[in-house]
């Protein structure tokens, strides 16, 4: 046989069958692609089939179980997706609103938004979690050792609490942030110490457990319908599904689903669906979880040689000068934060320091600094409304709405536009 001819034996077979055989060869790559596509499509479907059979519990028992849960040692991977429906224009605005979103209510802790300073500054970094999808790693060993890492492309941002030290390490810029007196943060309360990394780690919910605690805290028992809705598998573990629903109308929160580990009572997954329907606003869940003791080296951080370390004190000095939108909101809280109503439909009423205008998150405190173009732009983002209170602008996201009146008051809450206007009218 002549080897430089096609391998088909064309001497005996006729031309037609040779052609057919030629075509038949291409079935192989197609089959490989087909099998791969089928595998990709089928494996997740098979993996999630079947909810586990668990003994019935009442909602009350389950909530008590969460409260009694004493999981101190844990490590795992968390996937968190946040879709507030915000256009992505910088961390200023999202930073201002996101923590309130996590609390499912008023923006009490709204405010550690974008500020200048170290790239490893925890507050700025954690605010990035307020939009998009992120993969986190958490590890905890007792109350003194915790670690939270945000996995970026070829980089990682770690927040490590070990005893008296709180370290934040940003591997992309090779910068570290250090604060020493994390334990005292709560006592000092108000201003700078609140920005200690430990507090931030707590105030900005990022794990399902923190979300669940915030939600249960915010949920007024009488105004919430709480029930256990079957079971689910989360991160390979059997879990109960606890569903919280606001009873009153006017809230933008549709329902909150918390998957609670059947054995340990640890919340494994937190989903917040908006009343308006559509995809979840917040969806945070473990994809992998291990209740064993993490390696001690996990919490042992010493800044590598050559790393730029920002001490907490230094950072605060800077914040005083170039603190941005978030800080201004903070100032407002001290000035005149007023919470109207309670539970799901609570609305925070704020007065802007200047006494009027829009708090343009990200710029200076005085709205007089805002150029007319920016003002126009801001107005175009919101809806103009009128009522007994005068007129104002409503800024909407999928969860949090805010009404900024022309006489300088701001009403923020996880409530509908009508509820905001009603609150403003009542306050007038």
């Amino acid at each position, binding site marked *: 046989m002549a*080897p*430089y001819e096609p391998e088909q034996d064309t001497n005996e077979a006729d031309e037609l069958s040779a052609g057919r055989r*030629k075509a038949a*060869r291409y079935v192989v*790559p197609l089959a490989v692609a087909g099998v791969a596509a089928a595998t990709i499509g089928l494996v997740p479907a098979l993996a999630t089939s079947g909810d586990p059979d668990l003994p019935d519990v009442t909602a009350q028992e389950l909530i008590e179980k969460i409260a009694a849960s004493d999981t101190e040692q844990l490590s795992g991977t968390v996937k968190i997706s946040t879709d507030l429906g915000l256009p992505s224009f910088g961390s200023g605005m999202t930073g201002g609103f996101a923590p309130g979103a996590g609390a499912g209510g008023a923006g009490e802790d709204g405010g550690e938004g974008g500020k200048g300073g170290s790239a490893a500054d925890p507050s700025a970094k954690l605010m990035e979690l307020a939009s998009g999808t992120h993969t986190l790693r958490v590890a905890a060993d007792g109350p003194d050792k915790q670690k939270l890492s945000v*996995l970026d492309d070829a980089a990682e941002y770690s927040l490590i609490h070990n005893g008296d030290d709180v370290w934040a390490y940003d591997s*992309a810029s090779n910068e570290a942030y250090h604060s020493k007196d994390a334990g005292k943060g709560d006592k000092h309360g108000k201003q700078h110490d609140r920005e200690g990394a430990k507090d931030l780690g707590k105030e900005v919910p990022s794990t399902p457990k923190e979300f669940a605690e915030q939600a249960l805290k915010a949920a007024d028992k009488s105004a919430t319908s709480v029930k256990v809705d079957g079971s689910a598998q989360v991160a390979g573990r059997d879990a109960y599904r606890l569903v919280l629903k606001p009873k009153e109308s006017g809230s933008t929160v549709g329902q909150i689903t918390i998957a609670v580990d059947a054995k340990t009572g640890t919340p494994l997954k937190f989903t917040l669906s908006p009343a308006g329907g559509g995809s979840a606003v917040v969806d945070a869940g473990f994809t992998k979880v291990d209740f064993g003791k993490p390696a001690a*080296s996990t919490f042992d951080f010493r800044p590598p040689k050559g790393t730029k370390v920002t001490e907490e004190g230094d950072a605060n000095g800077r914040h005083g000068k170039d603190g941005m939108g978030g800080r201004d909101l903070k100032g407002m809280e001290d000035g005149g934060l007023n919470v109207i109503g309670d539970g799901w439909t609570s609305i925070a009423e704020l007065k802007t320091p200047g006494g009027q205008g829009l708090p343009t998150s990200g710029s200076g405190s005085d709205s007089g600094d805002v150029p007319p173009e920016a003002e126009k732009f801001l107005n175009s983002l919101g809806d103009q409304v009128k009522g007994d209170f005068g007129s104002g602008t409503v800024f909407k996201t999928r969860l949090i709405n805010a009404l900024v009146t022309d006489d300088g008051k701001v009403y923020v809450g996880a409530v509908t536009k009508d509820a905001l206007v009603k609150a403003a009218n009542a306050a007038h």
Partner: protein
Amino acid sequence: MSRADVTAGAGAPAAPEETGQEPGQGSGPRPVRLAWTLGLFRSELSVTFRRWRTLALLAVLAAVPVLVGIAVKIETSDGGSIGGGGPEGGGGPAFIAQVTNNGLFLVFTALAATLPFFLPMAIGVVAGDAIAGEASAGTLRYLLVAPAGRTRLLLAKYVTTLTFCLVATLVVAASALAVGALLFPLGEVTTISGTRIGFGEGLLRALLIALVVAASLIGVAALGLFVSTLTSSGIAAMATTVGLLITVQIVDQIPQLHAVHPYLFSHYWLSFADLMRDPVYWDDLVKNLGLQALYAGVFGSAAWARFGAKDIAT
């Protein structure tokens, strides 16, 4: 490729030399066949690595870490840190901020810098040249005169390309390690998770990363080989492969096309950095290797389908 051989036995029974590796069907005893395959592979390897073109490609690859290392050294010679300060963490390839502290990181920086373009381009040149180059030089028919069979020739070409992937990656890594050791201190390595590992383990992870980077190129190699069977012009095959590479990278950057991103061979390339986490984050690494295997399966068998049925006129 063994799958292709088995299916060849079922689908084209009239081609005995294709199924020669299966006992009882080949015309000669198995050891002879194996020796043939090995001999073919060895001659392919020496032909490829003795080409000036190949050596020039490797030299360019080895020069990249040298350039990066010297640039970092000059920029930080006044004590400043590279790319430090901004919340973006500065530009440049991954890990570049750590290079001044530990020369070992130059290995990762160099691989991150060469993986998007230099490495796959070199692979594209070698893979694209594999069949089409022989065809345009008129030597393909002589290769086929030897009783090795087309499947085995293709296999030898593909294994040669994969060997080149590994060699090219190791050249980059070795050059980066040498430059890093010369210009920067070495020692205990801080992983990107903030934990510390010994230098020995750091070296081990560097080797593992080099292997993963080499494995990331399997997909491009298979694609290049398939393109190479489509044409009789070596230049056209190389240009097409490199063009496809650029197109895929651009598509991977367009957010509106995110639905197709997980299927692009370059999508998980940077996942090799996950090996520097502690503990290692395997999810994307496994996805990357699975995707490369898929590309090798689909385009490898497509190349086999095309090459086996092709009329070789030149």
